[in-house]
Structures are given as structure tokens and as C-alpha cells.
């Protein structure tokens, strides 16, 4: 994406985000949404991060760092509190009380207070709030101008996160809500009854053609089952138990398992171990040559690895409660399991060549349509935020990449 430049006719957009980085799915999609908006607007990113307050250029963005972040502690405290209350609340209930509100706000409002002055300097035509729990940014926005048009990048994930009425004002304040997946969109639309104002935007992903040039040396081009975990190989836990089950049940076929401490290629009871898969290009090579990808992890937002696997033409198997299930179910690119027995049945079924071929084609078609085009993503984000898609200059279009 090239910098479109600035101009007096371009609208000004302020993106208020608690984090500005690429390390997580939430961080990456926030930056991608800001990038899409930068095609037709001047984008100012406001974040409490940074050791000192200051403004600098960051690519196509004007980055305003408030230097007030209390680190991860306040968020961790809030998330622990949410998890604890969710675990003890009755199913389907909406826990809320003045005491709980006070606890949830602790450490969340003060870091955002300087944002009011920053917004006064920017005078944005549109404000995008990132994260539906961003009550601090909402407070700063209200203090600046309660009437400025606002969109929300929900980063909701699933219904559990919308159980707390404390965060409802953030969603209600926004004229448009941007959701990454259809599941997330439906959850928000059902909860707030705003089907027309909640938009699925997907994410811009692509399959790297070079991933097909050379298979991973530990498993080769053997039609193996690729199992993704985020656990150490020696750790005890459900993921490792399921991974062990897969390699035992399908011991006549190579099974490659990624752990945090290494990559393990099992075949007929023997194992070859290699370095941990840390680079995305290494994971891409593994997915490109696999017969199917079993992602035992629970992605934080939408399951980027699952979508990338589909883009490489590799069907997926995911847990029933994974946010990546949508890609298997709606995208018809794989299967999902509720227990260990179903996991083995799903793999067995998808290893059938005819089934694998059909699901592979379906999954790739879905992934390319929903996630494989940066141009479509830009259009969706621009339209969802109420900006003019026609104002996007042709120069920023990246075109479509064919792979596989």
C-alpha cells in the first residue's frame, strides 16, 4: 500500500487504540483497518502507549503517543476480573453493578485523558474506536465532542465478551460497528439489534507463492497431517494429549506437530525434531505441503493461521469452540470436533482423497473471496466507516495475487 498523501479535501480520521503493534491478531487487524482508511483519509492514530508523549510519522499514519499507559497491568487486572465474573455468573446472565463498573474502570480512564486535547488538535471528521472495551477512549471522545461521527472496530471475538453491560456504551456510541468474522458480526447484531449497522470486514491475507517452492525438510512432501499447538512439547495439557492421539492414531502417515520448543515430525513411531516454527514463512511452507492442518490453539480473534491454511489449499480441523470454526463451517473448508473421538474421525474423513479435494477447493474459494483481496478489504472498511469508496485513488490498489 502506498502513501496516498494528504490534502485539504481528504477527511481526517482518528483511530483510538489501546495498542499499536503487530504482535497479536487484534493489533494486526487494528493496523490493517487504519491502513485501509489511510487510502482515502488522513489517519491519526492515538494510543496511550509510549514512555513519553509525542507525535511522529509512522508510515502513512500520524502517530500520537500519549505516554500514559500503565502497562499491561490494568488490562490484565480487567481481563482477570472479567474471566472470574464470567466463570461464576449464571449462563446467559449479564453481570453488572456499580462496584463492578468501578473495578472495571480502574486504570482504564486516566491514561486516555490527554486524548481529549489531542482530538481537539486533530479535529477529526470520523473517530474509530478500537476494542469494544475501550471505555477510556470513549470517555476522552465524549469530553472532546459527543457529536463527532464514530465507528467501532469491535474486536469482540464471541458472545462472552459482550456479556458485560459496562461496555455497552462503547458499542452504542458508534454509528457503525466493524466485525472481522460473520460470527462476530452476528453476535454484535443480535445483542444490539443493529444488523444494518454492523459490517463484516474480514482481513487482508495472502498466500505466499514461494511457500510452494520447497517443502520443510523434516516432513518433506509427504501429505502429512500438520498439528499446530502453542504448548511446550513436555507440557501437560489438552493440546498435547490431542496431538499425541493424532500421531498414534495416524502413525502410518507422517504427522508434523509444532510446539513452542520445536517442530516434531512423527512417522511409524519414529520422530525427527527440528527448530521451533517461529517465522510465518516457515509455517506457510508447512501448511502449503500438508494434507490438512489441525489447529488445536484457540485464536484470540478470528484464526489467521486457519485462513492462511485455506489460502494454501489445505483443509482445516479445529475445535468446536474455536473462533476459527467459522472458516470450516461457513467457508466449508474443513471440519470441527467436540471431543477426541471426533477429532480422529474428522481427520480420517478429510484424508480421503475425494473429500480432501472437494473441501480444499471450497476452502480456498472462500478464503480468497473473504480474505484474499486487500482491495476488497479496503473497500469494505471504507464503506463500513461511511467514507466514499470512490475517493480511493487507483494508485493504492494492489491487485489480486494468484497462488497454488
Amino acid at each position, binding site marked *: 500500500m502506498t502513501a496516498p498523501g494528504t490534502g485539504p479535501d481528504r477527511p481526517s480520521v482518528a483511530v483510538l487504540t489501546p495498542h499499536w503493534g503487530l504482535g497479536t491478531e487484534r493489533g494486526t487487524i487494528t493496523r490493517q483497518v487504519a491502513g485501509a482508511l489511510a487510502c482515502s483519509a488522513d489517519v491519526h492514530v492515538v494510543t496511550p502507549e509510549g514512555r513519553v508523549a509525542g507525535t511522529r510519522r509512522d508510515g502513512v499514519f500520524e502517530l500520537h503517543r500519549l505516554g500514559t499507559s500503565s502497562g499491561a497491568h490494568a488490562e490484565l487486572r480487567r481481563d482477570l476480573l472479567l474471566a472470574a465474573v464470567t466463570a461464576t455468573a449464571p449462563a446467559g446472565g449479564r453481570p453488572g453493578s456499580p462496584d463492578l463498573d468501578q473495578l472495571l474502570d480502574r486504570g482504564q480512564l486516566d491514561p486516555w485523558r490527554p486524548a481529549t486535547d489531542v482530538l481537539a488538535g486533530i479535529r477529526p471528521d470520523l473517530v474509530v474506536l478500537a476494542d469494544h472495551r475501550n471505555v477510556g477512549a470513549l470517555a476522552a471522545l465524549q469530553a472532546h465532542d459527543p457529536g463527532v461521527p464514530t465507528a467501532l472496530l469491535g474486536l469482540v471475538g464471541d458472545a462472552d465478551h459482550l456479556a458485560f453491560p459496562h461496555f455497552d456504551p462503547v458499542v452504542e456510541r458508534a454509528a457503525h460497528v466493524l466485525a472481522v468474522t460473520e460470527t462476530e458480526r452476528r453476535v454484535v447484531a443480535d445483542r444490539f439489534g443493529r444488523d444494518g449497522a454492523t459490517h463484516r470486514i474480514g482481513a487482508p491475507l495472502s498466500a505466499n507463492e514461494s511457500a510452494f517452492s520447497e517443502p520443510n525438510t523434516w516432513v518433506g512432501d509427504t501429505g502429512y497431517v500438520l498439528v499446530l499447538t502453542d504448548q511446550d512439547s513436555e507440557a501437560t495439557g489438552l493440546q498435547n494429549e490431542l496431538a499425541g492421539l493424532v500421531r498414534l492414531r495416524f502413525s502410518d502417515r507422517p504427522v508434523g506437530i509444532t510446539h513452542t520448543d520445536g517442530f516434531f515430525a512423527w512417522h511409524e513411531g519414529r520422530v525427527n525434531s527440528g527448530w521451533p516454527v517461529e517465522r510465518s514463512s516457515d509455517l506457510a511452507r508447512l501448511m502449503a505441503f500438508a494434507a490438512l492442518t489441525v489447529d488445536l490453539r484457540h485464536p484470540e480473534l478470528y484464526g489467521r493461521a486457519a485462513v492462511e491454511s485455506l489460502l494454501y489449499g489445505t483443509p482445516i480441523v479445529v475445535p468446536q469452540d474455536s473462533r476459527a470454526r467459522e472458516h*470450516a*463451517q461457513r467457508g*466449508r*473448508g*474443513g*471440519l*470441527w470436533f467436540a471431543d477426541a*473421538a*471426533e477429532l480422529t*474421525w*474428522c481427520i480420517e*474423513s478429510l484424508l480421503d482423497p*475425494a*473429500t480432501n*479435494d*472437494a*473441501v480444499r*477447493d*471450497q476452502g480456498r*474459494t472462500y478464503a480468497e473471496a473473504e480474505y484474499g483481496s486487500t482491495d476488497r478489504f479496503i473497500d469494505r472498511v471504507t464503506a463500513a466507516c461511511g467514507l466514499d469508496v470512490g475517493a480511493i485513488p487507483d494508485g493504492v490498489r494492489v491487485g489480486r495475487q494468484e497462488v497454488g
Partner: protein
Amino acid sequence: MGSEPIDPEELLQRIRTEHRSLRWAPLPPDPVRPGGTGEQVRSQESLDYLHKNWVLPTGIDELGRPGLRGKVIGRLGGFVYSVLGPYFRAERDLLAHMVRVNDALEKRCDELTNRVLELRHQVADRQVSEARNQTELAVWLHQALPDRDGPVDAGEPPTG
């Protein structure tokens, strides 16, 4: 898209339905050929020949033959044997050791053959026990899982 479309929800439902009835049976033990003399060293005839013929002649028979020819050959043979005697005796000792080594090898081969056969029987016995044990486990699991109400088709435990 060349292949027939597949609805994952339908496929999953079909998989679940198919697996409601337990279609599992333990692996039958591998066939084991009976042991016996047929498995022993097959070159008994050659071994017998070695035992009978390893001793080289110790002298020349021409000594007792009449005539000048016999006398000449006898004297010449005696001379040759007197010169080469130590070598012939050494060669006879060598052949004797080789025959003994062959005997020992034959014995060892037969022992190993019997041991392999014994192991194969032990493995087969273990397979039978494992198969029976797994059958019992499968039946127990079937009874323990409330939502698996299909018929058990685990087959008869193999007896080997």
C-alpha cells in the same frame, strides 16, 4: 471446481452417525508357521560328507606295488611325503578345525532358529492377549458412554 461440493455440516453428521455403532475389532494375530526340523539347517548331507572325508591320505599306496615302476613311485612318494609331511599334517589340522567350526555354526544356527520361533510364538501370544484385553475395554467403553447406543460389533476375541 472439479469435485462434488461437500457440506461440512452434513459430512460431520454422517460421520457421527456412522460412528455411533462401534465397528471395531482387534487385529488378528499374525500367522505363525509351526517350528520343527524343517526349520533346521538344511545342508545335513554336506555336513556328513565333510565329517567322512576331511582326513587327507597319510601316505602313498604305491609302496606295496610290484615292479620297477612301483619301486620308483614308492621311493619318490616317500621322499615327497618326508619333505612335505609337516605341511600335510598342518593342513589336516586346519581342515579338522574348519569342520568343528562348521559343526558349531550349525548348532548355533539351529539354536537361533528355535529362539526366533519361540519369540514369534511369544509375540503371537501377546497379540492374542492384547486383542482380548482391547475387546473387553471396547465393550466396557460402549457400556460406559451413554450416547453411544449402537450395537457393538467387536467380534469374537481371537484365540490365536
